[in-house]
């Protein structure tokens, strides 16, 4: 039998039992579509986070108060608290040769009001370097200018949404804004739709760091963002930062310095594991489809016993019968898989439309794996029914009508 004849025979057989064919195609398609869509989602999340982090700049070091690593030795005494990470610490870091920019950050919520309008917003206290480190753009006015961050200069930069809500269609630039119990002048407005780690920059107010510390009555910074001069000197700079802080904190290593690379790598690992996990769960659907194919092929063998007997009587060797049934199982699983692939890609496209920020798309490995597994399960689970068909005794097979 030539390949073309095998294919033609298979297609006729599949058409002849079209309800069964549709059911099996659906089962296989659901399995493959699940793998494609779930990995598209997982991969999208991973790429989204990666993009967010690289938007932060690759030379970034983050200094956090307190220590997250544990070391050997006796456990810390009860009640020991880390020293504050102060503004002075941050300014001292700027003297390190490998450091280009330093942005101290203090966070808090406060009520902003203009006239009768008021609302709660996130206040970020920082310095002028923050704009460059976070790559923010300004739509009007300028960013904070803080030659000396210790001075409480009463100025602020507001997000686009804050501007809209507080000032409406009126000009905001140069207006006074009440921030908690203080007042400051709006000197700049941020461009719209900027994000930092998924947090919208549209709804924040940026003020000089000393003003924020005073408003929230705090000594300690939330963190310090440090941009190194080059990527190669990242480790060196990190050590230098630790040395400076140690010397200022009486020999204690009470800050944690993380490279954003390390954070990214961790997120990447977690999200990749998550993608594998959901792909694995979806693969169960594929295995179920495989079992279903076996079941239905076994039924087909029973249904078509007389036909198999006839094929044997008119000269089909066992090998050929095996081939015909395997080809049916393979065709079913493969077309189901291709259907599922298309459905999955469509689903991913719909999700991508719904969440344009997240780069949703199934990775090639997942598509190939899903198609491969589909074909493999189809053939694997097709072997048993095909062998059973080939081993049928033609006399008994034909004696049934």
């Amino acid at each position, binding site marked *: *039998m*030539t390949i073309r*004849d095998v294919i033609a*025979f298979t297609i*006729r*057989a599949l*058409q*002849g039992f079209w309800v069964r064919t549709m059911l099996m195609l659906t089962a296989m398609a659901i399995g493959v579509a699940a793998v494609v869509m779930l990995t598209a989602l997982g991969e999208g999340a991973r790429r989204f986070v990666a993009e967010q982090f690289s938007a932060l700049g690759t030379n970034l070091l983050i200094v956090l108060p307190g220590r997250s690593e544990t070391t050997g030795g006796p456990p810390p005494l009860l009640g020991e608290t880390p020293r504050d990470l102060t503004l002075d610490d941050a300014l001292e870091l700027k003297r390190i040769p490998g450091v280009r920019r330093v942005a101290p950050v203090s966070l808090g919520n406060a009520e902003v009001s203009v006239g009768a309008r008021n609302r709660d917003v996130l206040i970020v206290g920082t310095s002028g370097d923050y704009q460059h480190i976070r790559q923010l753009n300004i739509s009007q006015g300028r960013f904070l200018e803080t030659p000396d961050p210790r001075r409480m200069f009463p100025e602020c930069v507001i997000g686009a949404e804050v501007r809209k809500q507080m000032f409406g269609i009126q000009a905001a630039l140069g207006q006074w804004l009440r921030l908690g119990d203080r007042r400051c002048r709006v000197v700049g407005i941020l461009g719209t739709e900027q994000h930092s780690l998924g947090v919208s920059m549209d709804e924040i107010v940026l003020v000089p760091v000393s003003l924020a510390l005073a408003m929230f009555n705090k000594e300690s910074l939330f963190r310090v963002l440090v941009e190194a001069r080059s990527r190669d000197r990242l480790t060196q700079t990190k050590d230098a930062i630790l040395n400076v802080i140690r010397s200022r904190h009486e020999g204690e290593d009470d800050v944690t310095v993380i490279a954003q690379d390390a954070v990214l790598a961790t997120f990447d690992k977690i999200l990749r594991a998550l993608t594998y996990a959901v792909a694995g769960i979806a693969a169960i659907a594929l295995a179920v489809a495989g079992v279903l194919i076996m079941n239905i092929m076994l039924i087909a063998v029973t249904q078509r016993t*007389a*036909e198999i*007997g*006839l*094929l*044997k*009587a*008119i*000269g*089909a*060797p*066992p*090998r*050929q019968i095996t081939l015909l049934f395997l080809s049916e199982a393979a065709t079913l699983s493969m077309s189901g898989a291709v259907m599922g692939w298309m459905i999955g890609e469509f689903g991913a496209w719909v999700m991508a439309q719904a969440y344009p920020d997240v780069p949703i798309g199934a990775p090639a490995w997942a598509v190939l794996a899903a198609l491969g597994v589909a074909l493999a399960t189809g053939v694997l689970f097709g072997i048993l029914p095909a062998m059973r068909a080939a081993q049928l005794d*033609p*006399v008994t097979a*034909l004696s049934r*009508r």
Partner: protein
Amino acid sequence: MIRLQGISREFLVGDQAIKAIKDIDLSLDAGEYVAIMGPSGSGKSTLLNVIGLLDRPTAGTYLLTAQDVTQLSDNEIAQVRQTKIGFVFQFFHLVPRLTAAENIALPMTLAGIPPAQRRERVTEVLESIGLSERAHHRPDQLSGGQRQRVAIARATVMNPSVILADEPTGNLDSKSGQDVLRILELLNEQGIMLLVVTHDPEIGARARRRIRIVDGAIESDIQQ
């Protein structure tokens, strides 16, 4: 052309061995027209299945065109069935989803004969059974007699030297039965050996040689 020597076929029913045919010696020559008759359960179908290589005898030797076919493997037997033997069954056994022409072409398709050659031969055979205009009908669109004629066409498409017919008219009215027998006899006149299994003495009487089987053994073998 066919030599059976001491052929037996035993079946295990439960733990009891039952001999469907016992120690049969038979020799059939090319071009013969033979009717195998007997009551139901006499073993006539088993004999036909053994001759048609659908079933293997448990004892004895079977020479088909001087070749000992009891020693062949399943694949070799399939090959012999494909080229030398044509089957006609009581229940036609057409593949329901294929058209008449496709059913007829099936043995050639299995043999891997190219489509152009298949089409030519199928047209020829369809003409000989008078069903040319029904070529693209499926079996459920054909009458019983027409189905059996398609089945005969399928049996002849590979130019076999033997046609084995197991109750070929058993499922037909007498008119279609007559037509079917006519076609089979025409093929026999062209030199193909025709072996008909039947329990109908009237049909048996048409054959030149009549073999009667009772309880798995040849009771009489009358040559006309």
